[in-house]
């Protein structure tokens, strides 16, 4: 496996301020790299979608009081790595078992479509869907697929009868 440099590794409690903090650090790091504006923005773009997704899930789980603090911190993770050519984003959080099928279908659908079809799907969703207070109209995954231009890898690992561990792996190529 190629040598990957870790740009950001974060595990633990996700608050809205966490998003800000991680983005600021990443922006500084990416500004020092010889990469195109397009790639830099794509990495940040996907990172925001991942972090906001974790944050939304984290809130639900905190309210649910299902995990103790130690367990909770272990289950939330965001990692950004690169190997000069490519960027790798890993995003993880617990998910309710009953929601797995919906999420899996969304990712499988996004993975099965080409750029033009993804754009069409995105357009139809923003034209027709309602957005909740914190966003979330199923646009995130489509946006990630569009910006990544690679298949989205994912896994679900059962934690208990209620929750599974949901991990997303996304790759962005630096096309200079």
């Amino acid at each position: 496996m190629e040598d990957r440099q870790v740009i950001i590794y974060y595990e633990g409690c996700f608050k809205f301020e966490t998003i800000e903090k991680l983005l600021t650090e990443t922006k500084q790091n990416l500004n020092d790299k010889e990469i195109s504006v397009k790639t830099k923005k794509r990495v940040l773009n996907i990172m925001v979608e991942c972090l906001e997704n974790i944050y939304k899930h984290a809130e639900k789980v905190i309210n649910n009081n299902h995990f103790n603090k130690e367990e909770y911190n272990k289950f939330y993770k965001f990692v950004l790595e690169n190997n000069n050519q490519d960027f790798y984003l890993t995003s993880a959080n617990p998910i309710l078992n009953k929601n797995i099928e919906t999420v899996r279908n969304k990712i499988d659908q996004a993975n099965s479509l080409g750029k033009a079809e993804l754009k069409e799907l995105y357009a139809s969703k923003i034209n027709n869907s309602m957005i909740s207070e914190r966003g979330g109209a199923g646009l995130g995954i489509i946006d990630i697929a569009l910006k990544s231009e690679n298949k989205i890898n994912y896994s679900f690992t059962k934690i208990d009868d209620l929750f599974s561990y949901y991990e997303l792996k996304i790759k962005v190529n630096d096309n200079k």
Partner: protein
Amino acid sequence: MDALIIEATENSPLISFDTDSKVFEIVGESRPENVREFYEPILAWMDEYGTEMSANLNEENNANPITFNFKLEYFNSSSSKFILDIVKKIYDFHTKGIKIKVNWYFDEGDEDMQEAGEELSKMVKFPFDYIEIAG
């Protein structure tokens, strides 16, 4: 009507809708914590302004177009729905006979932002001008 000014924050754009100069700008990043709470007052203001303008439209106040400058560095997927809503309101202005012009700015090399503008323009069937900001 008074101008609508909302200062930018780390995660929300500057909104500067200057009714005197008729330059309406949205500048910066858009990923507010509560996207609905951020955009709904802006959309409500636009409704009110559009109604007032169309009721009092004359040769003098409609001589120069309202110029909308979108200078977005980045917007998240939940903001995109509301940015489309703003573009739809701009189109409403146009259908009411109010002269408008839309400039869509993007950083040099940021094809994704340019394409986002093109998609929005296609959705409302109204042409935008695209302006590349040199890096």
